[in-house]
């Protein structure tokens, strides 16, 4: 065993694990509905690969090798538990093509079903994203817990409970029929966007693998797009995330200070990501089925236009927000509308939008207070602005944003 073969094997395992994890878990669990067993089996197969591949060389079809090894692991576990009778159908399914390695090289991609299971209406919506991150991408519970700001033990327990419910609760691994599809797809898109939102807020949250949750979310959306290329909102979501991701480098200066979008240098935006986003958005609009994510992507597209024109069309942005609020009246959309309207028509109009939001809704919503403080400051209402700034600063989690607001408050 030489260092290089070991290194090669390790790198291959990492790559295959990353690219194939979700495919393998989906395929192993599609009939048994037992996600935990599939994941255990796969991690055992990966462990075995770590010892075998450096010694014997990387197999010609690493994915098929892992699948076979994982199947053996499942069968061993079931035998060991001596609950063969109740698991006989499972065993039979797993055994079927175990002797035919060529068959397993072209196993079907069941990830779409898995994505729909993760975002199933019977599963707590707060767990949709964590389940996806774990079962499709192979992220461990501790990392997911940190991203979601939940204790690792609690996150682990919640994931286990959700998987038990999937196994025993009769949740089917299937792509919903046309009648159910739009609503069920919304939940999948929402869960992917949830991961992106966390990765977006977490500027420093790049772990050892250099992967931020925002990138993981983009990966998930790309997988979904492969499987549902015809859907306009899937493209809308991908376009939205790519537009935001294009600005990552511009969001902080060299000393780590926060730079708001309107003051970012467009030269620091990624032209490649913007172009890709625009392509998806154009493709989506051909379907003539507007939706929440396409509207949000359109707003980001207007912002991106500044790289070419040197100015921001705030009236267009406010217009898109108005449409967005009609179909998606969230706190975020209303706050965004207020900010855009203020830029287009003056701070007073923006403030009126904020004033119309019920006060108990915004107690813990930081962006509301940041926008409010800014607009009050524009209107020279110093005392009220100062109070709003304090709320925005106190609710901020990112120290760079805290510093930025403290400086603005003066």
């Amino acid at each position, binding site marked *: 065993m030489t260092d290089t073969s070991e290194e090669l094997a390790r790198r291959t395992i990492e790559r295959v694990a990353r690219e194939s994890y979700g495919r393998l878990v989906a395929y192993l669990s599609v009939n048994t509905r037992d996600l935990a067993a599939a994941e255990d089996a796969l991690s055992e197969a990966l462990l075995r690969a770590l010892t075998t591949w450096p010694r014997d060389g990387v197999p010609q079809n690493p994915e098929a090798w892992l699948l076979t090894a994982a199947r053996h692991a499942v069968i061993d576990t079931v035998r060991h538990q001596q609950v063969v009778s109740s698991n006989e159908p499972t065993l039979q399914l797993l055994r079927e093509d175990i002797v035919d390695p060529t068959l397993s090289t072209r196993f079907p991609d069941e990830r779409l079903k898995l994505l729909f299971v993760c975002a199933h209406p019977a599963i707590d919506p707060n767990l949709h994203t964590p389940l996806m991150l774990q079962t499709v991408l192979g992220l461990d519970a501790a990392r997911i817990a940190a991203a979601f700001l*939940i204790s690792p033990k609690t996150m682990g327990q919640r994931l286990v409970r959700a998987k038990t419910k999937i196994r025993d609760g009769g949740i089917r691994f299937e792509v919903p029929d046309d009648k159910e599809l739009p609503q069920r797809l919304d939940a999948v898109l929402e869960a992917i966007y949830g991961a992106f939102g966390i990765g977006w807020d977490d500027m420093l949250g790049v772990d050892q693998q250099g992967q931020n949750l925002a990138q993981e979310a983009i990966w998930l959306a790309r997988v979904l797009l492969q499987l549902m290329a015809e859907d306009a909102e899937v493209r809308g979501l991908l376009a939205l995330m790519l537009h935001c991701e294009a600005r990552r480098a511009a969001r902080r200066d060299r000393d780590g200070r926060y730079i708001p979008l309107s003051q970012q240098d467009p030269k620091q935006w990624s032209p490649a990501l913007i172009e890709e986003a625009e392509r998806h958005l154009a493709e989506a609009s051909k379907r003539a089925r507007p939706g929440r994510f396409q509207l949000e992507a359109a707003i980001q597209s207007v912002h991106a236009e500044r790289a070419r024109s040197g100015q921001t069309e705030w009236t267009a942005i406010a217009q898109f927000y108005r449409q967005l609020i009609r179909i998606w009246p969230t706190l975020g959309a209303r706050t965004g509308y207020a900010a855009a309207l203020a830029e287009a028509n003056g701070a007073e109009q923006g403030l009126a939008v904020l004033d119309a939001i019920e006060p108990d809704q915004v107690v813990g919503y930081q962006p509301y207070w940041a926008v409010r403080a800014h607009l009050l400051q524009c209107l020279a209402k110093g005392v009220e602005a100062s109070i709003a700034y304090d709320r925005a600063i106190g609710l901020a989690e990112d*120290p760079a944003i805290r510093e930025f607001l403290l400086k603005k408050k003066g």
Partner: protein
Amino acid sequence: MQFALLIYESPEAFSSRKSRENDTYISAWRAYHKALFESGAFVAGDPLEVPETGTTIRIRDGKRGIQDGPYADTKEQLGGFTIVDLPSLDAALEWAARCPAASYGVVEVRPLAPEVRRRVVE
């Protein structure tokens, strides 16, 4: 449900409390306290004096031991505490993450023990 947010700070953070120019430290804390108070979660809390002002006492086999300074000899020392009333640990962790000390020190979230309290007080 009540939780204690225990705030641990480094010697540098303790010293930045004193300097009048370093307004960000105090301003960030003031804003945090206000936001927590306005949300209705704040129950009680106070900053503590610097660790060197602590005096530790222990009695073993009838012998009194007394020592200047804090109990544990670690870099980050208890700098203050806040008691919050929130529906869940998740909510408490959210407030702990917003705490200015979370980005320069450590914030431990610990549930209070009302059952033990009841047995002691009654």
